[in-house]
């Protein structure tokens, strides 16, 4: 019989060693950068009532929700994303705080495996939400903050594509609702062949010029030139407004000095029902899959009783980890051994080294452990035979109040290698 207890559920993973250090480092850097921009960290429960999430879910996310029952028999679910819980917090716990609210988080989210999804079930994400500001300056801030945060993790080659749900909806507005849904699903699936086929079969639904505009729309990508192209097919007021917003956004982004890492993609359609305005998606050159996504969701907060405009973005921590070059994890851990009688010295040395920022594990030498009698194994090269280590190795002892103590610690720090085994 297979022993399940020793395996992990499919789609989950363990982290340890260098990879864990790098992941933690990325998360720390992202959160630190978010907080530097004035965003407050929030934490929400791992699971909530399923109805809470139902307010923000997209099509197959609902099917993939990992559901459980609480003791009263109510359906609860592991959070599939963080925007909805953060919106709930903004409307309840922080309901009396003045808008705008700047909130950030670093949390694991859960997507059950349904249909084609072969990806991870447990997905660590770090994100920001700016709630209560409807201007494009807020969208620009989110993008600029994201660019800074990704750079802070060490990523250099990446870009953001900017879409606008308002533009897409405005161009679709002339069509019957059922057709809009089909076209939107084709755009979400990024299936331009199906999109064209639908348009080709619906020649009665809109004027020929409008259909042609719909056909070229999702293929337009670029900078300011793309806005000009967008204007040329923006037949309704709402579409012109979206173009104005793109224009304002690009101007603001150049003042943030990040305009060089963004471009427009008119066909960008994210798989979440709640997006209402500018949408963003980030890509790293080193990775085939998007590393970040987000956008404006002006209708979600009202679902929780506090109507407010909002925008945000979330980073896929594991994908950033994968996109970064494999580099060493930097900080070595030193081991400090003690035997009978030297424990107080070892503990004192350990304290001192930690104060200096070194990572030290203090551990007793058991009879089985073959630690070299000279005190140091392998990595130790006594650069100063008369130094502190020789003093210790020769059986000398110090206490924290001893006049030798500071000298001993300084000497140890001076000769600490990448990873040292020291013996007191």
């Amino acid at each position, binding site marked *: 019989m297979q022993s399940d207890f020793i395996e992990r559920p499919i789609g989950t993973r363990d982290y340890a060693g260098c990879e864990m250090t790098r992941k933690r480092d990325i998360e720390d850097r992202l959160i630190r950068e978010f907080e530097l921009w004035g965003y407050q960290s929030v934490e929400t429960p791992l699971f909530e009532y399923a109805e809470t999430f139902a307010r923000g879910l997209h099509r197959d996310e609902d099917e993939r929700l990992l559901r459980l029952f609480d003791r009263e028999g109510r359906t609860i679910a592991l959070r599939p994303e963080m925007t909805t819980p953060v919106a709930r917090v903004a409307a309840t716990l922080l309901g009396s705080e003045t808008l705008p609210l700047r909130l950030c988080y670093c949390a694991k989210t859960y997507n059950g495996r349904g*249909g*084609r999804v072969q990806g991870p079930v447990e997905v660590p994400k770090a994100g920001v939400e700016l709630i209560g500001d409807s201007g494009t300056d807020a969208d620009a801030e989110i993008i600029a903050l994201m660019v800074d945060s990704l750079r802070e993790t060490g990523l250099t080659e990446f*870009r953001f*594509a900017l879409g606008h749900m308002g533009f897409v909806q405005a161009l679709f507005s002339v069509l019957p609702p059922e057709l809009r849904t089909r076209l939107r699903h084709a755009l979400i*699936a*990024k*299936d*331009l*062949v*199906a999109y*064209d*086929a639908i348009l*080709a079969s619906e020649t009665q639904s809109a004027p020929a010029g409008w259909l042609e505009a719909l056909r070229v729309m999702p293929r337009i*990508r*670029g900078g300011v030139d793309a806005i000009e192209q967008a204007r040329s097919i923006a037949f309704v007021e709402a579409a012109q407004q979206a173009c104005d917003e793109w224009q304002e956004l690009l101007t603001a982004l150049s003042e943030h000095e990040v305009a060089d890492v963004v*471009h427009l*993609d008119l066909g960008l359609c994210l798989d979440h029902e709640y997006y209402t305005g500018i949408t963003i*998606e980030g*890509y*790293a*050159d080193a*990775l*085939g*899959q*998007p590393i970040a996504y987000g956008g404006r969701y002006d209708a979600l907060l009202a679902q929780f009783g506090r109507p407010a405009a909002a925008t945000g973005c979330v980073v896929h921590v594991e994908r950033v980890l994968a996109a970064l070059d494999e580099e060493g994890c930097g900080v070595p851990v030193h081991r400090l051994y003690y035997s009978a009688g030297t424990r107080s010295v070892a503990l004192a040395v350990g304290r001192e080294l930690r104060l200096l920022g070194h990572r030290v594990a203090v551990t007793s030498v058991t009879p089985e452990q073959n630690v070299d009698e000279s005190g140091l194994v392998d990595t130790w090269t006594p650069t100063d035979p008369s130094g502190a280590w020789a003093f210790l190795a020769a059986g000398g002892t110090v206490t924290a109040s001893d006049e030798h103590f500071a000298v001993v610690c300084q000497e140890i720090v001076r000769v600490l290698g990448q990873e040292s085994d020291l013996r007191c």
Partner: protein
Amino acid sequence: MLTIALAKGRILDATALALASAGYPVPNDLAESRRLILEDDSRDVRYLLAKPVDVPAYVEHGAADLGIVGKDVLHEKQADVHELLDLRFGVCRLVVAGWPNTDVGAVKRVATKYPRFTTDYFRRMGRQIEVIDLQGSVELAPLIGLADCIVDLVETGRTLAENGLTPLAELGTVSARLVANRRSYQLRATEVDAFVEALRQRSGGAAS
């Protein structure tokens, strides 16, 4: 440099022809060659020769920027890629086939290489059927009673006929598609768009 994953097998010859007429000639011995990577320095492209079912994965994960593969495989794999162009070659019918007197509305077990197409088709008929997922020689299944019928691609219908089977219903037609990786579509837009345009003009402005 663009990396383009090509599906070996059924559509490879047509793919080579299409590429050549779009200004991207590939070596003549493509099908016979055992090399898996071919480089064309003059056009700054590199071709990967992959098993058709693997092409969506190469493109989804960004090992290839673009891929040319049949819609049959693409639909089954449901990869997260941009589907940019219907190349209009490698056209095949996807059919339900079985003994001549089989009632398609009453079958219970269906053998196929295309479980997703099959399940969708019968679900639309309001039927839940048992799918037997096979990798090849699907025609064998009804012959030995493993399944009531099959769902498979048909080009000429000869294999079916030689085994006494006949097409009973058509699910649709499939053809070769050009797909793009999500990162490459955004970050290598100029190169990707140029390649798409070259192939689009070649396929007579079809579908894009």
